[in-house]
Each structure stands twice: as structure tokens, then as C-alpha cells.
């Protein structure tokens, strides 16, 4: 193990990292997940990092490297990135072996000066600690022999096995491989991606394998032998959130001494959609040119410079050059891309692309795949859909004018600058509108078969009952309502424009939602339903005419998408006029105001997350085996919980009896494979919710159980004839009872309200 003290560079904050750790924002959790893999003996099998393009994966891994290097004493961090400069599989494998040994030795010596030198493999062998000398020498010799032997695959495997061989001699490491998707471009008989997958899953050394999310897994799966990725954790790396992106711009501007205003910071964040590469490029460009970022004009001038000739321009140029090397084809590609972007939804048929590019088969597919991998477009066998990123679209527009229309550069620059300046307030307005949107998709996703007062979905009723009533009275009124609507369970919610692009002409993307779900279990055609919800903008109650327009729009959407059962739901800030409500009722559509929506939101419990602290405080779970009177244990447990809530003795006994019946029901009917009953007791301020579930056959409650209790009048003399009262009894004893089929069994949810 290293005994030397780390030199000055190591004591500093940056080794491989390109920005100071303090300026590296928004990735703390990701960084923690990666570095947690390092301790030797930790129970983990490595990680896949599936990254959005230019989301900052390389910097994340380099920051992880620096952090681990400075911790000293533990596993050695190794960072290796495949490069477009790598030509062959053998060359890349050899570079990996060299990098591995160099970084391992540097870490074990605590000597970062090694990074500035370029020692050969043999020279590295002279630098190793005595304890490592033997295995390193043997590895280098094996490599030399392998190189002469001419077996490419064996040599690649030898190089990739270096971490494993080192670990076997006590030199543990965390190997971070970046840009793994580039392996597919390397020449050679061996598939390096598959070999990396093989090495990482076979080794006891943790590997972090990072690459573009649309390609990484494909590259590593291109192998004859199936590679099991089950043991690998997955980290999805997206662009930064608004808050993190703002912080990034602020930190960078401060570090680089670039004057910045809040307004331009926010404009940059919105314009680049939180992309760290673009945000960094903009602030660095400001520093390089001595400009400030204090006005929209400053910001957009720099942006246009970047777009037309800066780092952003070079990045897109490089990608297009990689995707389509011949200049003529690239020019055609820019034309088709730009023209397709002008279509509704940015969609155009693949066939049109084939004709416009005059390309066939493999070459066309290669270009399509390149665009897809870098998320510049998405394609399937029929359509190509151009990426919606603002910067990408503006790059396309400018380059179309320069390369296809051959317009003067000065004119294109001027027009682009004017256009981006005119667009800036709209970009911010769009952001504010998005922030102010009611987030219907999130609300719908939380429905989950819950019951809510019907007045929350019928504006006319709500208006009649609660208009001008205090908040407390509204809450009490809603509590007392007996007409309840059972909401569906939503399994997929997405923007209506994703289903029906013309909607974008009349509303913002997030203001119309299509939510697929089920009214009840089991998941059958009969229970399937699609909720189509939209926010209607209006400062006053929406009238009949506008309501009709929206109902028609949503109906058309449902029709165009072939939804057999659609439920329309319109939401307007101030609700709907009387005749509009009448129309909604005629169409069996729901209508709510913002106030109703807010009340609905508060009444729908958030998605159950077992790991939250609050859940831990008011939720109890218990698993009991079936049989052996274990239901008594459950009954005694629920008794204790109910006492804490100060239920009356009678109510406690009713809850106990209901729970006993539920347990018996589970034992008798489920054919449970694990013979266990899962119980959850959720304490809320005014109620106790008991959920009893079991795996196995999901039986519908017998028809007899839906009838009234027979009051002992069944005198056929057979006790069998008198069985099957369990569910009826439960319904009598508890306030709310829901019997559901779930994926693998049944679930009974029973609620008892507190009445002091």
C-alpha cells in the first residue's frame, strides 16, 4: 500500500476533473452512488450509467475519480474513456491496460505527477511498489507474448482482466469506463463492447460502465454469449433540474468572474433546458470574450456566437460529421432535418428521407441510428421525428440557411440574433406558464382507485354547495359527502400532444394529458379507460361555446387514437358557467375549477413510498403465517394501534373482528404459495386504514358475500351453508371496504373512521 504522502496536486481538488468540485453541481446523489462502489468488499456488482447526450457523464466520473483518489487508502479509482481517436480494438484494449496500470500505480504511490508523464508499460513496471512488482511484470510479459501470438480476442481479454488480476494480489480498484458506446466504431475481429460487458460481469472488481442511453446496452449486448446485467445497478443521468442549472450558471459565472443577472441566468437555463455542456459553453464564452451576461442582449449575442461558430456549433458539426462524413450527404441531411422539423410534431416518413437523401438500406439506417443515438431524432420503421431541443432546432435553421440556401453569413447571424432576442421573452413566458400549469399528469398518476367526493369533479355541484363557504366548512362538507367517485388507477400518463400533435397548435404540451388506466381490477378490456384531461385558460367561468370546442378537441383526440372508453375532464381556473356545466353533464364529462383541483390534490394521498420518514411514523407492517390462529396476533396488534388513536372500545372490537375475518378469508381462499398474510396499518388523523393482502389465486368475492347477512335464517342445518359471511361481516363492521385483485393475489382495504 502507498506510504508516500500525496503530492501537492493530489492535495488540491482537481486531478482529472475539469472543474472545481465546488462548481460541480446537481450531481451529488449520482456522485455518492458511484463512489459508494469503491470500498473493497462492499456488496455490489457495479453500475451502468445511461446518460443523455452531453449531460456531463465524463465530468461526473472524473469528479468521482478525484474524490476517491484523495480519500487514499481504499480501492484505486480508474477512469478510462474510449475515444473517437481509437482506431482498433487492440489499440483501445492496450490503452486501457496502460491507463489501468498508470492510474493504479499513481494512486498507490499517491503521485499524480505520473499523469503528466507518458511512461511505457516497461517503465511503469519500474515504478510499482515492491509488493506489486511481480504481478505487474507478469502481466506486462503476458501482454507482450499475447501481442506476438496474434490472437486478438485473447489479448483483449488479457488487457481487460488486469483489474481482476490486480485484485487477486490485493490491489483493488473501481474501474470507470466512459463512452463505452464508442466501442462499436473500432476495427477488429473482436467486439470490444461485448468483451467489456463480459469482463465487468465476470470480475469481482466493480465496474462503472457509462455511455449514451440509446446505445450503451445494445453495444454491450452484441455478443454470442448472453451477458447477465442483473447484478448491475443503473444510474440515469439527465440534464440538470432548473434549480441545479441555475446554481451551475451562478457558480461558473462567479468562478470565471462573469457579471450575471438573475434574468439572463434564467433565460440561459430555459434556453438550454438545463444542459450542462451548453450552459458551461455560454459562460466560458462570456469569459473568453470579456462579455457580461447581464442582459438578454448580452446573453443572446453570446448564444448566437456559440451557435454559429463556438463550442455548441462545433459539437453539432462534429456529430453530423460522424453521422454523415460525405459533405454532400451532410448538406442533404441538414436540409431534410430542417424541413422535417417544420412539420407538425417534427415528423416525416422514412420513405421521404430515403428519397430526399437518395440513400438505400444500410447507409440510410446508419445515419438514422446516428441521429437516434445522439437524440437529434428518433426513428422507427415508418417515421422519423426530429429532436425538439431549441438549440438543435436553431442550429439546424441557421445551418440550413448557410449551407443549403447559401445565404450570406452576416445576414443569417443578424436574423438569428434578432429572432432569438424576440424569442427570449417568449421562452421565459413559456417557462412561467409551465411552472403555473396544474400538473394534471402528476395528479392523475396518483388516482389509484381512490374515492373522492363527486362534487370535486362536477363544478356545478361544487358551486352550488360550496361557493362562498369558508375553507373549514368546505372541508367538513366534503368529508360528509356520501356520493363518491371511484377514480381509476392510471398506468400511463403523457401529454396529449404526444398522442395527437395538432394539439400543440392550441395549447401547451403540459396542459393536456392522456392517461390510460383501469376503473377496477382485474385488468380487462371492460375495465380499461382513458382519461383525457385539459386545462382551459380563462379568467372567468368558461362558457358553453368554449367548453364545446374543448370537448370536441378531446373527443377528436380520443377518436383519432382509437380510445374505446374515454372520460373527458376539463379544468378551468374559475370553473364553468351553468350552461357549460350542463353541456359537460350531457357529455358525461367532468369539469373542475382550480379550487376543486387543489382540494382534490389534498384529498388524494401521495404515492405510497415506504422509504419516507413520514410513512415510517404512521404506518405499521406485519406479516403473519397462515393458520395456527395467527389472526389473533394480528387482532392484538391492531388493537394496540387503534388504542393509540383513541378509538372507542366497541370500534376496536369491530376492527379486530374485521381483521380476523380478513385473515381467515386470505387463508381460506388464496391458495397462497407462501402461506403468508401481509398487513399494513396506516394511521391517519381521523381514520385507521388496514390493508390485508395475500398472494395466490385472486378470487372474486362470492356472489353470496355481496348480499345482506342472512340473520341466521338459513336453517338448512349445514354449517357449510352458513359459511362465506366473512366479507359481509367486514363490510358491516368497517366504514369502507375495498376488495381488489392485485397482480398476484388479492388485497382488502378496510377503513374505520374515528368517532370520539
Amino acid at each position, binding site marked *: 500500500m502507498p506510504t508516500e504522502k500525496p503530492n501537492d496536486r493530489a492535495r488540491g481538488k482537481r486531478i482529472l476533473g475539469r472543474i472545481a468540485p465546488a462548481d460541480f453541481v446537481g450531481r451529488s446523489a449520482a456522485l455518492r452512488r458511484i463512489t459508494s462502489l469503491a470500498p473493497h468488499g462492499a456488496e455490489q456488482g457495479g453500475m451502468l450509467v445511461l446518460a443523455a447526450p452531453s449531460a456531463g457523464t465524463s465530468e461526473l466520473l472524473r469528479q468521482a475519480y478525484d474524490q476517491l483518489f484523495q480519500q487514499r487508502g481504499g480501492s484505486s479509482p480508474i477512469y478510462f474513456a474510449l475515444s473517437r481517436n481509437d482506431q482498433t480494438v487492440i489499440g483501445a484494449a492496450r490503452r486501457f491496460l496502460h491507463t489501468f496500470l498508470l492510474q493504479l500505480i499513481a494512486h498507490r504511490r499517491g503521485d499524480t505527477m505520473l499523469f503528466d508523464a507518458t511512461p511505457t508499460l516497461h517503465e511503469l513496471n519500474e515504478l510499482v511498489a515492491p509488493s506489486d512488482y511481480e504481478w505487474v511484470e507478469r502481466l506486462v510479459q503476458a501482454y507482450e507474448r499475447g501481442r506476438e501470438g496474434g490472437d486478438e480476442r485473447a489479448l483483449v481479454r488479457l488487457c481487460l482482466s488486469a483489474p481482476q488480476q490486480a485484485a487477486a494480489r490485493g490491489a483493488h480498484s473501481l474501474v470507470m469506463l466512459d463512452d463505452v458506446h464508442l466501442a462499436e466504431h473500432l476495427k477488429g475481429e473482436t467486439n470490444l463492447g461485448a468483451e467489456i460487458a463480459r469482463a465487468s460481469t465476470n470480475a469481482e472488481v466493480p465496474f462503472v460502465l457509462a455511455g449514451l442511453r440509446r446505445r450503451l446496452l445494445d453495444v454491450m449486448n452484441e455478443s454470442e454469449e448472453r451477458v447477465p446485467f442483473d447484478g448491475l445497478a443503473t444510474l440515469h443521468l439527465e440534464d440538470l433540474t432548473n434549480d441545479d442549472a441555475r446554481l451551475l450558471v451562478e457558480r461558473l459565472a462567479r468562478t470565471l468572474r462573469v457579471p450575471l443577472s438573475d434574468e439572463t441566468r434564467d433565460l440561459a437555463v430555459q434556453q438550454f433546458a438545463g444542459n450542462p455542456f451548453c450552459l458551461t459553453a455560454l459562460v466560458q464564452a462570456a469569459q473568453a470574450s470579456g462579455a457580461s451576461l447581464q442582459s438578454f442582449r448580452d446573453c443572446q449575442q453570446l448564444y448566437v456566437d456559440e451557435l454559429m461558430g463556438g463550442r455548441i456549433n462545433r459539437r453539432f458539426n462534429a456529430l453530423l460529421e460522424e453521422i454523415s462524413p460525405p459533405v454532400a450527404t451532410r448538406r442533404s441531411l441538414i436540409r431534410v432535418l430542417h424541413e422535417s422539423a417544420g412539420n407538425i410534431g417534427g415528423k416525416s416518413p422514412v420513405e421521404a428521407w430515403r428519397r430526399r437523401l437518395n440513400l438505400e438500406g444500410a447507409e440510410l439506417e446508419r445515419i438514422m441510428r446516428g441521429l437516434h443515438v445522439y437524440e437529434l431524432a428518433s426513428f422507427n420503421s415508418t417515421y422519423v421525428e426530429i429532436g425538439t431541443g431549441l438549440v438543435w432546432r436553431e442550429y439546424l435553421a441557421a445551418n440550413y440557411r448557410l449551407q443549403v440556401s447559401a445565404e450570406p453569413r452576416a445576414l443569417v447571424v443578424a436574423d438569428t440574433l434578432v429572432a432569438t432576442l424576440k424569442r427570449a421573452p417568449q421562452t421565459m413566458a413559456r417557462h412561467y406558464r409551465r411552472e403555473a400549469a396544474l400538473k394534471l399528469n402528476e395528479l392523475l398518476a396518483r388516482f389509484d382507485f381512490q374515492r373522492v367526493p363527486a362534487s370535486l369533479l362536477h363544478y356545478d355541484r361544487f358551486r352550488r354547495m360550496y361557493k362562498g363557504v369558508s375553507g373549514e366548512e368546505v372541508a367538513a362538507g366534503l368529508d360528509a359527502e356520501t356520493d363518491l367517485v371511484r377514480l381509476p388507477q392510471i398506468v400511463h400518463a403523457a401529454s396529449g400532444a404526444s398522442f395527437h400533435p395538432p394539439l400543440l397548435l392550441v395549447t401547451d404540451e403540459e396542459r393536456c394529458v392522456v392517461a390510460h388506466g383501469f376503473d377496477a381490477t382485474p385488468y380487462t378490456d371492460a375495465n380499461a379507460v382513458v382519461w383525457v384531461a385539459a386545462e382551459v385558460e380563462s379568467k372567468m367561468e368558461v362558457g358553453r361555446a368554449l367548453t364545446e370546442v374543448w370537448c370536441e378537441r378531446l373527443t377528436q383526440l380520443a377518436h383519432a387514437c382509437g380510445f374505446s372508453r374515454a372520460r373527458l375532464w376539463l379544468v378551468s381556473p374559475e370553473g364553468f358557467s351553468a350552461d357549460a356545466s350542463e353541456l359537460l353533464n350531457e357529455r358525461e364529462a367532468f369539469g373542475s375549477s382550480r379550487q376543486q383541483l387543489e382540494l382534490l390534490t389534498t384529498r388524494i394521498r401521495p404515492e405510497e413510498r415506504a422509504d419516507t420518514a413520514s410513512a415510517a411514523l404512521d404506518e405499521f407492517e406485519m406479516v403473519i403465517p397462515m393458520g395456527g390462529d395467527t389472526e*389473533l396476533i394480528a387482532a392484538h396488534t391492531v388493537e394496540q394501534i387503534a388504542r393509540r388513536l383513541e378509538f372507542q372500545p366497541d370500534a376496536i372490537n369491530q376492527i379486530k373482528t374485521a381483521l380476523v375475518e380478513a385473515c381467515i378469508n386470505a387463508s381460506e381462499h388464496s391458495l397462497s404459495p407462501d402461506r403468508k398474510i401481509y398487513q399494513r396499518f396506516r394511521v391517519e388523523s381521523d381514520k385507521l386504514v388496514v390493508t390485508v393482502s395475500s398472494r395466490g389465486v385472486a378470487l372474486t368475492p362470492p356472489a353470496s358475500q355481496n348480499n345482506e347477512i342472512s340473520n341466521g335464517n338459513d336453517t338448512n342445518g349445514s354449517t357449510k351453508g352458513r359459511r362465506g359471511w366473512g366479507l359481509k361481516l367486514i363490510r358491516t363492521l368497517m366504514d369502507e371496504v375495498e376488495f381488489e385483485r392485485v397482480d398476484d393475489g388479492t388485497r382488502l382495504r378496510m377503513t374505520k373512521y374515528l368517532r370520539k
Partner: protein
Amino acid sequence: MIEPCNNYQGGARGSGDIAVVYAGDYVNKLSGERIERECRNKLDAGCRTLIINFKGTELVNSIGVSILLGVIDAAEETGAHIVFAEVNRHTIKLFDLLGLTRHVALADNEDAVNKMLAEFAVPPANQGH
């Protein structure tokens, strides 16, 4: 648990055909079947009054109730009386809900049991000579 005929601890008078069966703390399938077996044995042995004592019974489940209904049927067939004694309030509500209380007499305590037994007692002269 079962008390022999003519040995009701509450001191029932004048009848040699009374049996007391204790229900135990939990009346479920297993204990219900035990109660049923003991009751049927006693009825077969000529008991005219069956007292099922629920002292200490915390819970009765629906299977237990269905078995108790079977016992009631059996007693009715032989013309015997059934008394449910010392049933707690919650269990009475449950029995009420399930219709048992329409077929049995309920006794809160020993005094009430004795009073009922007195009412059930038939003078020897009327016993079919």
C-alpha cells in the same frame, strides 16, 4: 371445558339435565367444533338445557358463529334450551348481527342463569307419565 350434568356451579335447581360448556377465549373453527361435539354429546345424553358460557371469550369469528348455529339447530331438534351466558357486549352485538340471539336466551350472570333455569324447569308431574 364442560361441566357435568347436575353440576352447574351457579346452583341450578331441580333439573338433572343441565350442562355447561365453556367457550374459551377464541371461538374459531377448532374450538367451535369442540363446543359442538361436547354439546351434541350432552344432548345425546339427555341434557335439556345447554349453557354455553362465554366468560373470557374475547373473539368469535364467523366460522365459530356458523358452528354455534349448528349447535342451536341440534338443540332445537331435541327440544332442548340453549343459554348463552356471560357474553360480552361486543360478542352480543355480533351474535345479534348474525341472528343468533333470536334463537338463544342470553344471561348476563349467574343470577340470570338461575332465573332462566327456573323458568325452563318443568314440574315432574308434567313430564309425561
